């Protein structure tokens, strides 16, 4: 029970962090059909920007400034990069973001060094909020949950209750029609791209000190965010939300549940020893394949149900 509740909370925190990254990517992906490989790189940049800003101005200004910087960067990428490449077709667009991810990683290494930077949780939030079954729950995790919940509410309200939100929703499915009605669809694209990258930057600001701020963080996070986006389905924010939470829970629970197929077989009376055929495969424990689970899910969902959990069309 104890392990269950603590893991549930941690899974929720991680899931919400994933959602922050994935929500922006989902919007970009559904709208432009571009799988933005550089999305996780912007997440990394958000963390590094926040680190540098918090050295001079403190954490709270960084919480505002770093996402804005990321958003501006996103707008620039869309206007001067993606739009240029767009006329060459989909594959060059994908490759463009892929190359961008390579470059950003290298630039980060050049600017902040190869090793992790000491980006820490602000002192004001560095205490334990409550104790549950003897395990302390840090206030910072509650803060993360709060920020991501606020963000979810803001996106949802923005998309469903505002004029620009409605235009964005329409552009998701019928970009040509929206253009014909006299809306500036390229500008809508830029706005969505900038907002999406700003969200990724925000995720970086609050995720960077929760996890570790190092040059490898983009490449470890990127594929998982793709999994969430595909799993949730194109064009569906709700699907993306559910997928993020599921993925967060799966990854957290996989770490604490130390079982393997061999343990399962023991329940039905088959004891696996070193001599059993396939023993190496059967004795792999769940924590070890924890990191693999998202990719297994990715492959399965793309093969069996390419539109994802709640998607409206195929990937």
């Amino acid at each position, binding site marked *: 029970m104890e392990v269950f509740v603590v893991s549930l909370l941690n899974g929720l925190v991680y899931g919400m962090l994933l959602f922050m990254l994935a929500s922006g990517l989902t919007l970009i992906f559904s709208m432009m059909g571009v799988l933005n490989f550089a999305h996780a790189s912007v997440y990394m940049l958000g963390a590094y920007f926040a680190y540098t800003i918090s050295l001079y101005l403190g954490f709270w200004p960084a919480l505002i400034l770093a996402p804005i910087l990321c958003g501006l960067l996103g707008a620039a990428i869309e206007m001067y990069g993606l739009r240029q490449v767009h006329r060459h077709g989909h594959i060059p667009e994908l*490759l463009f973001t892929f190359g961008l991810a390579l470059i950003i990683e290298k630039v980060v290494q050049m600017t902040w060094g190869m090793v992790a930077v000491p980006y820490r949780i602000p002192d004001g939030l560095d205490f334990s909020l409550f104790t549950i079954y003897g395990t302390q729950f840090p206030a910072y995790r509650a803060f993360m949950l709060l920020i991501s919940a606020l963000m979810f509410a803001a996106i949802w309200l923005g998309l469903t209750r505002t004029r620009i939100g409605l235009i964005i929703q329409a552009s998701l499915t019928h970009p040509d029609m929206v253009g014909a009605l006299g809306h500036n669809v390229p500008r809508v694209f830029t706005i969505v791209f900038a907002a999406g990258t700003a969200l990724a930057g925000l995720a970086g600001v609050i995720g960077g000190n929760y996890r570790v701020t190092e040059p490898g963080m983009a490449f470890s996070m990127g594929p998982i965010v793709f999994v969430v986006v595909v799993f949730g389905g194109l064009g569906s924010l709700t699907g993306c939300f559910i997928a993020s939470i599921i993925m967060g829970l799966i990854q957290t629970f996989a770490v604490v549940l130390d079982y393997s197929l061999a343990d399962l077989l023991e329940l039905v009376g088959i004891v696996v020893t070193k001599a059993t055929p396939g023993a190496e495969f059967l004795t792999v424990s769940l924590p070890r394949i924890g990191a693999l689970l998202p990719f297994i899910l990715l492959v399965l969902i793309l093969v069996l149900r390419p539109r994802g959990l709640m998607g409206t069309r195929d990937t």
Partner: protein
Amino acid sequence: MNPLYLLRRHWVWLAILVIMLAAPFLFYDWSRGRHSGFALTLMSEMALMAVFALSYNMLMGQAGLLSFGHAILFGIGAYFTAHTLNWVKANDIMWLPAELIPLAGGVGGLCCGIVAGYVATQQRSTAFAMITLGLGELFAAAALMFMTFFGGEGGITTNRVIHSSIFGVAYSSAWQVYCLLIAWSMFAAILMYLLTQTPLGRIANATRDNYERTQFVGYNPRVVRYWQFILAGFFAGIAGALYTLVYEIVTFDTLAAVKSANALLAAFIGGGGGFFGPILGAVVVVGLQSGVSLFTSAWLLYLGVLFIVMVMYAPGGLIGIIGLHAPIARMGRLGELMVPYLRALVPTVVGGAGFVAVVELATHRTIGAAQGKKLSLFAMPVDSSSLWPWAIAVVLAVAGALWLRAEGRQFRLRWNALIEDAKARGIGV
């Protein structure tokens, strides 16, 4: 078919063979009578990377399938070869000649292609790219998990010196292995070229160009994709086998994402449209990797920037750029482009030098200085902590970029005039 016709049509193959045989002798140490080990390794890496990139292009260029996990085919081929070599060595098997060992890698890649391809080719386009990405991550993680086949982090070591050669060659020296490598990479490349001429190759092009019409004609695009994937797996496996022969150790790096990315970079920078593009791309990528990395740790950044520039301005790759000149060359007016090219070259060099200087200064401040290295740029010692080098570098980079933009406009005018002229004379563009 008379031989002269064949030669005129396929002179590129002969040129590649001659270059591959002759290039190591440029670095030959005549005084001691031995080959330069570095040059041979570099050439081998280029050759096997070229095979790998060509096999990647069977998917990207010819079938329009963007794969992010092509290295699994390469890696499995490499592991297969290592195990085969160890098995031959342990049991003293004489019926399997050393010359045929790379076939083991091919079979490994083929098997992997049958399994992974069945899953991946269910979808096309972005979904295909995502599945291959997932498969790539799965295989790389599995390689660290299952010790018996993959050997964990240490990988599998092997020894290429086996005594079953048909020609009685021991393959103990780097030159002997290099010759075997030339033979196999030429063989694989020619086979891949012939494949593009078969109905399968043509239909693969058709599914790339218009997926729906191909279905109307009566082909099943999924089957075409599957076949193309399996065959690409065979050739990627051969490239992996050559890797094993050269390095005699296979680690999980061979099937990790970086390797896949290298194939992608090589195929794209070289150009996916023509058959020979990936070969050119492999030479450039490996050259940057091995040559430039001797001088700077930022080589990956230069590669990334080169890649982005290619994606933005020359999606046809290097081979595409060369191809664009064909109509002008046929008019015999290539000389008129000489001056515009020289004029564009000057700002490119200026801007490039500025950019390189900025990158090197930045790298030195964060990485190089910590290692106690002294920075010298263009043969001049530079202090990366003072302001002047930075200012000069930034000014050079910005001025070069602006100047290049202005020159670029002039260049485009000249270029368009020539192309218009070519069109007017009825020379195909």
